[in-house]
C-alpha cells in the first residue's frame, strides 16, 4: 500500500542514516547562511531555497522517529525533541532561530565591539561601544560621590562582606552576636562612614550618592526596616482587637492599592507640606521611608499568609503552656510562619531591589539614573543601548542570584510536617 514503508525497527539501518544526514544538512545550510552569508542551496529558486532547510529537517526528523528503536540515544532524542510532527517543527524553528540570532549578537557584543580608547571617537566598529561603560564605570558604581572619598563606600561594603563571610565560619554560639552587629550596629556605622561629617571625614551630601552603591544602600535599609514593620502589621491584621485590626487593614490596603511612583511623588512634593515650616528632612531619608512603608505592606501580606497557614493547635499549645501574646508569637508562631513563607519574602525583597531605580522621580540617581545622565551627555550621545544592556545585565545577575539563593534556603529549611 504505502509507497514508502513507515520508519520502524526493521528499516532502521537505512532510514536513520538518511534522516540524520537530512537533519544535519538542514542545520548546516542555516549555519553557513547565518555565519558566512553564503547560501548553500542558492542554485534553487529563491522561495524554494528559503524553505528547503525546513523541509529537509522535517523529512529527516520523520525518518528517524522510530519508537522503541533499541538505540538509547535515538530514543532519548525522539522523546525529547521529536515526539510528533508538530514537535519536530517546533524544534526546527527554535534551532534555526537560535543559529540565525547568534552571529548578529556575537558581532554586536564582541566581534565588532570596541573595548579600547577613552572617547566616543574611538568607537569605530558597528558593534557596541563598551568604551562608554569603561569611561563611566566609576560614575555608574558611585554616582557623583567625590573620587577621593570613594574608599569610604568600599570600606563600608568590605566590612559588610567580611562580617558576613566570617559569620559563616564561627561557632553557633557567637553567630548571634554577628547578626546583632549586622542589624543594629553596622547600618549606622556604615551610613556614618559614607555620609561623613565627623571623625575628620568630609561631609558628602546624599544628593551626591548614586550608582549601584546607592541601589545597595537603599535596598539594605529598606529590607532592614520593612521586615519588622511588616511582621507587626501582619500581627495587627490578625489581631482580635478591632481598632488595631482595621487600622492595619486600612494601612496595608492603602499602600498596596497605589503604585510606588505615586508614593515617591508624595514623599517628594506632598510630605514637606505636612511638616512644620522650615523643617527639612533629607531627600534620601524621605525616599527610604516611602519605600520601606510601601514594601512593608507587601511584606505584611506575605507574613499573614504564613500565619494563616499555621494550624490552630500551635496557638492552643502555646497558650496552654501559659505563654502570653508576645511570647507565643516570638517563640512559637513567627519562627514557623516565617519559615513557611520564605519564597514570598524573597519575592518581596526581590521586588524591592527591582523597584529602587524608581527613585529617579525625586532626582536621586542609582545605576539606571546614572545611565540616563551619561547617555544625555553631549559627548556620549547615542549610547543608550550599551548603557541599558549593561544595567540590565548587572540587575539580572543580582536578582537571579537572589532568587537562586532563596530557592536553596527554602530547600535547606524545609522540614517535614
Amino acid at each position, binding site marked *: 500500500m504505502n509507497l514508502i514503508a513507515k520508519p520502524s525497527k526493521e528499516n532502521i539501518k537505512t532510514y536513520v542514516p538518511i534522516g540524520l544526514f537530512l537533519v544535519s544538512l538542514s542545520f548546516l545550510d542555516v549555519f553557513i547562511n547565518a555565519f558566512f552569508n553564503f547560501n548553500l542551496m542558492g542554485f534553487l529558486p529563491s522561495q524554494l531555497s528559503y524553505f528547503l532547510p525546513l523541509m529537509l529537517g522535517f523529512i529527516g526528523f520523520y525518518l528517524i522517529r522510530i519508537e522503541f528503536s533499541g538505540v538509547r540515544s535515538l530514543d532519548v532524542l525522539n522523546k525529547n525533541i521529536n515526539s510528533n510532527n508538530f*514537535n519536530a517543527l517546533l524544534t526546527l524553528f*527554535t534551532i534555526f532561530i537560535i543559529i540565525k540570532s547568534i552571529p548578529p549578537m556575537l558581532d554586536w557584543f564582541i566581534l565588532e565591539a570596541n573595548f579600547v580608547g577613552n572617547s566616543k571617537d574611538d568607537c569605530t566598529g558597528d558593534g557596541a561601544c563598551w568604551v562608554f561603560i569603561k569611561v563611566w564605570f566609576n560614575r555608574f558604581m558611585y554616582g557623583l560621590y567625590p573620587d577621593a572619598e570613594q574608599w569610604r563606600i568600599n570600606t563600608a561594603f568590605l566590612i559588610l562582606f567580611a562580617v558576613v563571610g566570617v559569620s559563616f565560619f564561627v561557632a553557633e554560639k557567637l553567630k548571634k552576636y554577628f547578626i546583632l552587629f549586622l542589624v543594629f550596629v553596622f547600618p549606622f556605622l556604615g551610613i556614618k562612614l559614607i555620609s561623613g561629617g565627623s571623625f575628620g571625614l568630609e561631609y558628602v551630601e546624599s544628593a551626591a550618592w548614586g550608582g549601584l552603591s546607592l541601589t545597595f544602600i537603599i535596598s539594605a535599609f529598606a529590607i532592614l526596616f520593612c521586615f519588622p514593620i511588616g511582621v507587626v502589621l501582619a500581627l495587627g491584621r490578625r489581631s482580635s*482587637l478591632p481598632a488595631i485590626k482595621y487600622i492595619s487593614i486600612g494601612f496595608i490596603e492603602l499602600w498596596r492599592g497605589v503604585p510606588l511612583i505615586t508614593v515617591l*511623588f508624595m514623599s517628594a512634593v506632598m510630605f514637606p507640606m505636612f511638616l512644620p515650616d522650615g523643617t527639612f528632612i533629607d531627600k534620601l531619608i524621605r525616599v527610604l521611608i516611602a519605600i520601606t512603608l510601601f514594601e512593608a505592606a507587601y511584606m505584611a501580606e506575605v507574613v499573614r499568609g504564613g500565619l494563616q497557614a499555621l494550624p490552630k493547635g500551635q496557638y492552643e499549645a502555646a497558650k496552654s503552656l501559659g505563654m502570653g501574646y508576645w511570647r507565643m508569637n516570638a517563640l512559637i508562631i513567627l519562627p514557623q510562619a516565617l519559615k513557611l513563607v520564605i519564597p514570598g519574602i524573597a519575592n518581596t525583597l*526581590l521586588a524591592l531591589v527591582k523597584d529602587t531605580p524608581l527613585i529617579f522621580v525625586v532626582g536621586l540617581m542609582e545605576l539606571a539614573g546614572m545611565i540616563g545622565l551619561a547617555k544625555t551627555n553631549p559627548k556620549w550621545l547615542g549610547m*543608550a*543601548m550599551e548603557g541599558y544592556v549593561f544595567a*540590565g545585565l548587572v540587575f539580572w545577575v543580582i536578582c537571579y542570584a537572589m532568587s537562586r539563593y532563596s530557592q536553596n534556603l527554602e530547600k535547606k529549611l524545609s522540614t517535614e510536617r
Partner: protein
Amino acid sequence: MIFKKFNIENKKARDLIPQAITVLALLSVIIYFATNAQINMGNRGISFGFGFLNQEASFDITFSMIEYDGSHSYGRAFLVGLLNTILVSVIGIFFATIIGVVVGVSRLSDNYLIAKVAEWYVEIFRNIPLILQIFFWYFAALRALPLPENGISFNDISFLTIKGWYVPKFIWTNFNIFLLSVIAAFIAIYFINSYATKQREQFGKQLPSTSISLVTLILIPLITFLFLGVSLTFEYPVLKQLSSTVYTYEGGVSIIPELIALALALSMYTATFIAENVRAGILGVGKGQKEAAASIGLNKNQILKLVVMPQALRIIIPPTTNQYLNLTKNSSLAAAIAYPDIVLVFAGTALMQTGRAIEIISITMLTYLTLSISISMFMNWYNKKMAIKEK
C-alpha cells in the same frame, strides 16, 4: 465573685488600652500633619479645595483619546490621563495574557528545547527591573527604527518608524447598527450554548455548539454589511514631504513610540509572572483527574475543556488577578518616558502649574485605589463563579 468580676473588667481594660493608645497616636499624627499643612498653605496663600479642576489647564498633551487642547480644564486633562492609563493597561493585560499562557504552556511542553527556551524567557525578563526594560525599548530599541521617509512598510498599509507606528484608520458608516448586530450575535450565542448544554445534560446529545456560535458571530454582522447599509473603509497613512528633509505621514492613526515601548515592556514583564501562574495551575490538576476523564471515554479536547481547564483556572485566576493589578499600577512608570498617563499629566504637569500638591496627589492615589479595588472586585466575583460548588 468579686475577683471574677474584677478579672473580666481587667481583661476588657487590657483590650481597651492598646486600642486607645493606637487610635490616639494615629489621630495625633493626623492632626499634627493637618495643622502643619494648613499653616504651610496659609503661608503660600493657597487654600484647600478642588475648584482648580474647572480652571483652564493651558498645557498640551501629546496623545489623547478624547478631544483636548490647552483651553480645556484641569478636570478634562485628568480624564485624558486616566483614559491613557486605562488604554495602556488594557493593551498590556491583553498581550501579557497571551504571551503568559503561551510561555506557561511551553514550559510544560514535552519538547525539551521549547521548555528550555520558555524557562529562560521567564528567568531573563522576570529578573530585570521593569523600568530598565521600558528604558531599553524606548531609548535603545525603538530609537533604532528608521526615519519616516524609509519607514518599515507592511504592504504599504502600515508603517513603522522612529516617530511611531502608523496604522490605517477605520471609517465606519452606520457603526451603531454594526455594534448592535455584534451584541445581538453574542446574545444569540449565549442562548445557543445554554440550549446545547441542556440538550447534552438532559438527552446526552452532542451539538456542535462551537461551530454554530462561530457561524452566528460571522453571519449576523455580515448581514448588516450586505443589507443594512453598514460599510467600512480604511484611511491609509501616506508619506508627505513637509520640507526638503522633513517627512511625515498623513492620515491613518499614529501609535506613539511611548505607548509601544510601555505596552511591550509591561506585557513582556508581566507575562513572566502569568506564565508561572499558568504552569502552577496546570501542574496543580492531579494526574488522576486526567486519567479518570480518559477512562469515561472523553477525548483529548474534551478532557482539556471539561476537566483540566476548569480546575486549572481556579488555581490560575487569583494570582493572575494580582498580576493584572500590578500591571495597571506599573503603567504609572509611563512618567519616566513621558507617555501622558495620569501620573505624568496630573501629578506631573498639573501639579507643577497649580502647586496643589495635597489635592492632586490625593486624587491620583484615590484613582489608583479605585482602579485596584474595582479590578479585584470584578475578579473576586469571577472567582466565586468559578469556585467549586460543593453539594
